[in-house]
């Protein structure tokens, strides 16, 4: 089972950037893509703990700011040989809230 959590207002995240949030005890980097979609992935890079919310993104990937490892925002798969990162379903609701679903333990 997953629970949906409102995390932030859309306006809290500038377009094309990410911000880290704690959602249901998990650290999650939430991104607002330029095409309007929302993506949520684990906040730390599996490589050496880099802050993924500080990474550069496009419509598909995030590049970790520390050593440039690259991860698909939708699937979590790494294009640079790292372990995959966790991804979380996320969307914008009608009231402009960013909603992230986190599985319940």
């Amino acid at each position: 089972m997953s629970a949906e959590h409102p995390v932030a207002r859309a306006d809290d995240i500038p377009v094309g950037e990410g911000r880290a949030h704690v959602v249901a005890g998990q650290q999650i980097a939430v991104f607002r893509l330029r095409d309007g979609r929302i993506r949520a992935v684990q906040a730390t890079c599996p490589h050496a703990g880099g802050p993924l919310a500080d990474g550069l993104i496009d419509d598909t990937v995030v590049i970790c700011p520390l050593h440039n490892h690259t991860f698909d925002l939708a699937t979590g798969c790494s294009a640079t040989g790292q372990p995959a990162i966790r991804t979380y379903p996320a969307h914008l609701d009608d009231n402009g809230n960013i909603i992230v679903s986190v599985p319940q333990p």
Partner: protein
Amino acid sequence: MTNPQRLVVVGNGMAGARAVEEILHRGGDRMFSITMFGDEPYGNYNRILLSGLLAGTDDADEIFLNPVEWYRDNGITLHAGVRVVRIDRFAKLVLADDGSITPYDKLIIATGSRPFYPPVEGMWRDDKTLTPGVFGFRTLDDCAAMVHHAREHRRAVVIGGGLLGLEAAHGLRVLELEVHVVQSAPLLMNQQLDTQAGHVLRRSVDKLGITVHTGQRLTAIRHEDIVTGVTFADGSSIDCDMVVVTAGIRPNVGLGIVSGLTVERGIVVDDQLRSVDDDDIYAVGECAQHRGEVYGLVAPLWEQAVVLAEHVTGHNPQSAYHGSRTATKLKVAGIDVATMGLKQPEREDDEFVQFSEPRHGVYKTVIIRDDRLVGATLLGDVSKVAFLMQAFDRGLPLPEERIQLLFDIGTPAPSVGAAELDDDAQVCNCNGVSKADLVARVRAGERTLSGVMNATRAGKGCGSCKGLVADIVEWAAGGKIEDDPAANWYVPCIPMDKPELMAEIRSRGLRSVSAVFAELARDGRPDAASKMALTSLLRMMWGAEFVDERDARFVNDRVHANIQKDGTFSVVPQIKGGVTTPGELRRIAEVAERYEVPLVKLTGGQRIDLLGVRKENLPKVWADLGMPSGHAYGKSFRTVKTCVGSDFCRYGLGDSTALGIAIEERFKGLESPGKLKLAVAGCPRNCSEALVKDLGVVAVEGGRWEIYVGGAAGAHVRKGDLLTTVDSPDEVMTITGRFLQYYRENARWLERTYAFVPRVGIDHVRAVVVSDSEGIAARLDAAMQASVAAYRDPWLEGENPVTPGQFRTALPLIVLPRVPVR
């Protein structure tokens, strides 16, 4: 083909993956459906680079040879993190520890080796895990665990003074541990070196601050919760909190034994690398024993992989492996050691040439038998290694004057090497690529250096052969080497070089990064990897008209500080020309205390760095400092180092300090394709190192100033080229501005001046910048003036953040390893 054969490979290391590559290369993907098992949870990586990873000279990013996608792209089923436990040869099945059973038609065993742990008390916690604090040095995980442990601990003992031990010791020294190397033999690297060489090496190792203990046999490892020390046969001991065991390796042959294959030291194979018991089972790499030899280096396994592939694909069933001649190099920065073949003469009529200069750490020998090179040792000076390796490998005729083998008097100079090198000469020793392999690629139509390198892997190991590879490719192409088209693109997602791209941007009036993507990128899609370079370019082109999209900036440029390994930032205020005041110093001191800055450091750029500042504190830190940004984080104009010059120094010929400050004041923070570091010196003694700067100014007799460009003393060292000599500080300012603008407009992204100036040619630069041969001087000056005028101190944003959460921490909760506080 309807029913491809099933090929199963056990062991996903350097030999296993290379064998599969060779097989694919021979059309194996049509013949076989391939399944690979690897004990390690990764794709295949370059084990050799673990030493560099530990010492921080190689990046974990670069270490993967075959990332997981490679397997997918080639239709290979990879079971990573799965160990094969038995082969049922009669049913032709492999059984793995995840319970899976996989049938095969052909099987390759490439299980490599593992560290040998001497059987002493205290080594193991139980029968599976080492005592905490004890490490082997074999895998990526070993390496990561060592680095992690080393961060928190002080004193390490490395058991074993061979190649691996010294590389481990060096890495741990770099991590700032106190390091002891314990060697049971009387000499370091005793397998490769004779007594004298051993002594010379030892001096060099001492100089690295590593303590060597020879003739000491380990008898026990002491421990409480973790290691506390080691004890030796003579009763002496060393206290320590980390032990690395590099006392040799043992081939992983357990699988061969339980599956009924003939195993001596390794799995015994014939000249086709087939097990002597089973025609469908091959063994390759360190687990294989061929004609009595088991190898512990990569060069032999490249040769083995080729023969195996020729044979299993039926490409050339006659192909046979006859054994390899091996040479070794020590990968420790500052100590050059290369050895091949014999370490000392064995027969009475062996010729032995020896040169020894122990005080300078130089020792060289060659051993010649029947006019052939059968051994060589080079310490301290390895300039002849390429020729000697070739002579050793190929049995080339040797010069009559043997001394020429040791010194540069007669053997082909490295520059003519490309043409004269033997076809079979191995050029890339990491990846086993010969001159003929490179030439064949060029003949097959590959005309770019990067193309040849990608196709052959040459130059992709330790990288030391890149220059020679480039020479050979150029020679083979008859000088008609083409630049890789993509290599000239300014960014990967737009197929245009910089001038084309700039023209396009200008004619379409594209003022933002997203507009550039929409109009020029493939399918109009944004590309994260191109953003930073485009931001820099557009800002340079449009100045105040640039439409700034914050998401197109790298994090450093979003928060105006340099990100560090733990997600904190460093703050370097501007200290023009390295000149500060008591008032500034007092404020810096107060800020450092107020925000508990873990490290305050004088930088190599003559200023002060506050390291480990939390992102959310940046605005407060800037406000309290009340100093402008020093731009120590962007691809931009950084510093102007100065010396005391004519005001105080008895030799000073010009006021270097004032000029340096003026230059920094004018050009501060300008974005550019690469960092710009300048210096001004008051006389040719050059105390501010102006000859190795992107632009350096030197006062000379007669009130004149020399201007040097394209110098460097970082990752590359290059003396700057003299651009011109001028008569006044004003002229220095003009020429500096014009040169910097020319560089900003014409250099590739991240191309520092040390690469740009030689590429364009100093004569050309001089013609444009000094003699105005293209009639663009006035335009360059005006463009520079516009950029200077558009400058705004980014630290003012602290007062008015530009985006919501601009300084919000990106890692809120977990306590991550922080930069250690001293």
